[in-house]
């Protein structure tokens, strides 16, 4: 329970910072995007609580706006991957036979591949050739989410399938079938609720995975494009300035660390709760 609470507390604080970003900006009397060349690499303290970046923008404020992007991408990718993964896992367990074999070999294949090199290749694709607008923050976010879902469903699907298989073998399922319950209602009312705990654990872990993957892609310059802040592209900027402002590289990493550790604690807590 304490793990769950600690994890939720960490994530709650970050979410609060993300939601409060505009008010924070109003309180500090500036925004996260306008450059102020007289304040380049301003040290922490005084006017700038955590210092300023290479264009004199407030780091605390950019961290809060970056939380919107990073947490948003993480949550959206994890939710989409969980929905898709649960559906695929349930389908594989219910149909069995060649459907199960094909879906699970596909999952094995994706799991065996090195993810990041493929993500880098996919992220470099030109959305304009698919008829999507280029360079807007929202399309960037949707593009990254779509790429992350492509790999993210695998873990959820494997867990959901294993749980669904053990549920489908239970006596109450046979009883429900004998009573003439339709297959759709059987899956929806009798199997799906039993998948809640394993899917919740897998979902919490994939939020962490998605936040990490987004930050790596943005760090490599293939994710969220500036001027929109994300923790990953803030780190990329800070890396170029390790001599001028070494502290600027600390904060975004701490934020990623807190978000990922929070998700891991929540996943661990939910798993323990279920095992008790």
């Amino acid at each position: 329970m304490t793990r769950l609470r600690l994890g939720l507390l960490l994530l709650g604080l970050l979410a609060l910072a993300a939601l409060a970003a505009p008010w924070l900006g109003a309180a500090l009397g500036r925004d996260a995007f306008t450059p102020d060349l007289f304040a380049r690499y301003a040290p922490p303290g005084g006017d700038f609580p955590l210092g300023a970046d290479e264009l004199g923008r407030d780091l605390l404020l950019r961290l809060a706006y970056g939380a919107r992007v990073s947490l948003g991408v993480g949550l959206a990718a994890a939710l989409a991957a969980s929905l898709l993964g649960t559906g695929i896992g349930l389908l594989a367990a219910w149909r069995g036979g060649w459907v199960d074999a094909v879906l699970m070999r596909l999952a094995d294949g994706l799991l065996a591949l090195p993810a990041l090199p493929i993500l880098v290749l996919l992220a470099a694709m030109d959305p304009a050739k698919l008829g999507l607008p280029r360079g807007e923050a929202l399309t960037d976010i949707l593009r990254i989410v779509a790429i992350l879902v492509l790999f993210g469903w695998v873990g959820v699907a494997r867990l959901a399938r294993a749980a669904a298989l053990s549920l489908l073998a239970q006596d109450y399922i046979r009883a429900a079938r004998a009573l003439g319950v339709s297959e759709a209602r059987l899956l929806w009312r009798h199997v799906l609720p039993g998948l809640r705990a394993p899917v919740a654990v897998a979902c919490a872990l994939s939020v962490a995975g998605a936040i990490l993957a987004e930050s790596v892609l943005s760090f490599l310059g293939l994710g969220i494009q500036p001027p929109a802040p994300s923790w990953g592209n803030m780190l990329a900027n800070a890396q170029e300035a390790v001599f001028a402002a070494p502290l600027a590289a600390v904060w975004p990493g701490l934020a990623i660390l807190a978000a990922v550790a929070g998700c891991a604690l929540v996943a661990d807590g939910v798993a323990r709760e279920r095992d008790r």
Partner: protein
Amino acid sequence: MAGALRLAALRLPQIALTLLLLSLAAWFAIGLMPGDPVSLALVSDPRLTAEDAARLRALHGLDQPLLTRYLAWGAGVLRGEFGYSRLFAQPVGAVLWPALRATLALVGAAVALAALLGVALGGLAARRPRAAPLVQAAALLGQAVPSFWLGILLVILFAVTLGWLPAGGLPEPGQSALPFLVLPVATIAFGHMAAYARHAATALRAELARPHITAARARGNGEGRILWRHALPNAAVPLLTLLALDAGALVSGALVTETLFARPGMGKLLYDAVMGNDYNLALLALLLVALVTMLATLAADLAQAWIDPRIGEGR
């Protein structure tokens, strides 16, 4: 041994099929990337006309449909013709092999270090219950720290502030290579070490509770000998599973680390190729990385079947 052979016979066709599908998918993804070679040539030479572009496209077969081009390319690769890298102006083979060697050295050193320290920490946690929460907290931290951030922090501390180690790059001829390896290896190893420590602690603790350990203790064996000689060989099986699952993550870690520390290797090569629109090199590098990853996974599975013959039998 028979189990291991059967495992290999089952998995090698799977690996070939995965590579085929990956190459097909990547080929079409690359078809969606900005700029084909001819439009890049147009940008760099303003004297080229539209007719020149059309002629160049026809000459290189770029006016053909994607699938036709894929089949021609695939037939070439199967014959061992990997083509040229535009970025490096060299045959792709000449670029790939040194990069692969550099990455294998980096990742190999990192895995060896992570496994040694991880198992040692796990043994400590299993022997001394009081140290267990510490090891657990360190494991959580190690898995949550983004490795590229850790790399930046290490550079700030050891290269910028203390000036003990180089911030990246490669040694000049005559310089020792070791200092250039320390930070990248530590960057990759840290997260994996944490995972190994946690799993080693769990596996060793379960093993230490079993009857053969009590029997060994009754025969008068020392605690250290019991831990390393009697418990560890059995606990090694789940650790090898973890190692097999880790191959992909290690390669991904190498990509970030090599980019961060400007070390030539497969990861940086792939990244540079993608960024430099050198698609033939990017594709072949991706396939080679995928092949090596899957072969490493297979090797770990085979080692498992060798340690525990029951594993090969079931499949």
